[in-house]
């Protein structure tokens, strides 16, 4: 993924059964966890 790639998320509503994949909003991006290095490396 490059800086220009959109940041996507999948959203599923169990009540309606609807699933969509769309670009995350700025607020949703800000709510993502801080990127981190993996605990176990290959």
């Amino acid at each position: 993924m490059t800086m220009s790639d959109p940041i996507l998320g999948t959203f599923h509503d169990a009540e309606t059964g609807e699933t969509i994949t769309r670009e995350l909003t700025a607020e949703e991006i800000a709510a993502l966890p801080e990127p981190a290095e993996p605990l176990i490396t290959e």
Partner: protein
Amino acid sequence: MAVKTFTTNEVLTSTDTNTYLANAGLVYVTSTTVGSAVSSVTVSNCFSSTYDNYKIIWSGGNFSAGNDGYLQLGSSTASYAYQIVYANFGAGAVSTYGDAAGANFRYVTEGDANVAGTNLELIGPNLAKYTACYSVGIGSGVAYMTLIGIHKVATAYTGFTVGPLAGTMSGGTITVYGYRKA
């Protein structure tokens, strides 16, 4: 409906059949297909008072690169206490890691470009009490990890979010089951 013992040549009624189908011990709640190269998957309205405890399985997917996967309850980003045990396949010893106040249940999976997934249980996510999590991370071909954790917030949640700590996740199915109460 309590467990019923059928006898030889007894007529199996539609009522009994439907009741037993509806009241299986582990009941399907919902499932979704993970999109391609997404940073997170949010499943909403999957926890309710119908069930107290849930099993969540993500299978058939992968991460863009090797990393840890997390689970977050609702929009809560604090008070996740957990301990994990992990080991590289073939290694004779296991290692441990923990956090007393994490931002999520990190390490519910360990995946890479080949495979990632998890088999986890949530105890009481829709109850206004602390929520417990038990998971076995499936993936990477390098290691496994198991997590036991408690989310120390007495709030009822109706959904969750999962994702990798960096990069993206793709494909596979996330399925949610509820444990029948009675």
